[in-house]
């Protein structure tokens, strides 16, 4: 569906069902340079099992209009504006990589409206190599190649796909190369408040990490888990593009977590 957020047309994927703000809402937040399509194999399950799904494309990304937001803080505030625009009261936030940082920033603004938080392939801080940011500023397509070569685990580098016949690296390349990757990477690199925000969380939180993650290495994810006092799920044979690479395992963890909340 398209909604207007701060005067800009914003695309929100709803998992193949009409959005119903009365149902418990699962918010799915994409990572740097990506879009709602990274949740293709999770969104529909939630939408067809009693939840409403709200998976937006960030401003300036894929199907959403507007200028890309330049800080994680601005993204967090924008998310709350987007939820307000759609008339959504309480939410479960699930974020991949940068999407989790954005959720951390939305958390204090949401207060009691935040029911739970799920973090996938991420950490409290995502420092980005300055050479990658520079490349992204000059040639997004080349930077996307660098990201995808690092981002996908070894099986996907050998052309394995959860969807028969498709090439996730090829799909990711087209999406990232046309999105404001440099702005996203810079925002991640500058973000410092992750630990503080994570410590302040009052809702149930779970963390899923990818064993072969080279963008946000497992050891960083484990530090975050320790800070939160939780035992994370670690998925083997998978890289940073966790929701795409291991959709079934990711969904299983997301499902189990949300089902234990009631």
């Amino acid at each position, binding site marked *: 569906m398209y909604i207007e957020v701060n005067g800009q047309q914003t695309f929100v994927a709803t998992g193949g069902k009409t959005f119903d703000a009365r149902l418990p809402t699962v918010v799915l937040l994409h990572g740097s340079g990506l879009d709602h399509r990274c949740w293709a194999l999770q969104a529909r399950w939630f939408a067809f099992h009693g939840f409403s799904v709200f998976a937006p494309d960030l401003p300036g990304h894929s199907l959403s209009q507007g200028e890309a937001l330049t800080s994680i803080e601005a993204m967090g505030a924008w998310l709350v504006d987007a939820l307000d625009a759609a008339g959504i009261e309480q939410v479960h936030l699930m974020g991949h990589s940068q999407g989790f940082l954005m959720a951390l920033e939305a958390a204090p603004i949401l207060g009691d409206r935040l029911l739970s938080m799920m973090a996938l392939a991420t950490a409290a801080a995502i420092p980005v190599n300055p050479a990658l940011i520079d490349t992204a500023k000059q040639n997004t397509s080349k930077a996307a190649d660098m990201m995808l070569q690092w981002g996908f685990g070894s099986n996907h580098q050998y*052309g394995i796909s959860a969807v028969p016949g*498709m090439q996730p690296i*090829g*799909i990711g390349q087209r999406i990232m190369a046309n999105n404001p990757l440099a702005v996203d990477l810079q925002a991640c690199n500058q973000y410092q408040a992750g630990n503080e925000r994570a410590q302040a969380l009052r809702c149930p939180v779970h963390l899923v990490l990818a064993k072969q993650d080279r963008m946000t290495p497992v050891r960083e994810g484990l530090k975050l888990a320790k800070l939160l006092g939780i035992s994370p799920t670690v998925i083997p044979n998978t890289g940073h593009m966790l929701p795409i690479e291991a959709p*079934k395992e990711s969904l299983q963890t997301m499902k189990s977590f949300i089902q234990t909340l009631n």
Partner: protein
Amino acid sequence: MSRSSYLGDDTIALHSGYQPESDHGSRAVPIYQTTSYVFDSVDDASALFNVERGGHIYSRITNPTIAVLEQRLAALEGGSGAICTASGMSALFVTFFSLCSAGDHIVSAAQIYGSTVTLLKHTLKRFDIDCTFVAINDAEALENAIQDNTKLVFCESIGNPGLEASDLPMISSIAHQHGIPLVVDATFATPYLCKPIQHGADVVVHSVTKWIGGHGVAVGGAVIDGGNFDWLASGRFPTLTEPYAPFHGMNFWEEFGPSALAMRIRCESMRDIGAAMSPQNAFLLLQGIETLNLRMQQHVENAKSLITWLQEQDAVAWVNHPDLDHNPSQAVAAALFPKGAGSMLSFGVNGGREAGAAFIDALQLSSNLANVGDSRTLVLHPGSTTHSRLNEDELAAAGISGDLIRVSVGIESIKDIKSDFANGLRAAAKTAEKLAQQG
């Protein structure tokens, strides 16, 4: 550059799409000779039917062996995904069918494979899809042929029977200026010689029956989605950008973006038309693809050597190949096919139609048959076979002279191919002499 793998092409050809650990350690890709797949649970079954998760339901739609071939072809061509079909013709059909509806129009190169002409000129016409044929390297003719209802431009990377290389950067740029995609049949070149997506093509189609399979044992086709075309911005493709009722109103562009076309073909054509490849054929074609690059090197080397040799023979009237100076597309071929523009060539023998027939009948190594792209050398004399019912004027209109011999150069030892052809040329010369004596 749009890519979908960071492996080298030789590695992709051998490994892409398959890792052994999930299949009992089987090093070779297993043949999943099954029609259907057991669901874990009722919930799992409904998740599969509802596209909540990827996986296999029924082999008309997907199959694990075929999926390896699809993913390998997508990686080789640098696309976002691929769909394999029962034949090259069905790959072309599902592509046109997925992009066009009644009332739409296609602009196609005039020089293309005969059955594709029939499909575009007669078969699709019954469904009110029209086609205009143009000399595809003529920018003005192409531009003039595009109408408001045109949905795509189609050509072969090397056209048939004239063997002209298509100027893909020029053609795609004109198509894109009009908001329509370029579909390229790349059968004659294979991704080893030219990757059309890198030159602006949006969809690549193959008859994998030919060089990709290479061994002449299995018929098959493939559609590779280039993933770069913005179907929404174009505004001409309701099949990809508007809700599809059979899947809860799924919008393929919103849901899948760069793989929207491949997913539409999967969800609609494979399900409702069902021109599926067999798992056994996918396995045989995978055996072929593993050595594609090595075979293509030898195909091209043999073709070059045979061309030079033929040009030196007294009995030969003319030789045609895209790499030759007198071929109108030589400059295009040099730019797009730096390793050589394929292993198809044609030549004429002195003495016309009858001498041509005598040449073919005298061959032993080379096979006289209606196929191309086998590892073995194949020859055909259209004037006495596929086009035998046409008179000289009709032949000329089809771009075929009575003396034309079409050769798909194989990978045998080149000295043996030449020696076989030398026998053929002697027979042709004798016939030509007899004809001359008869006056």
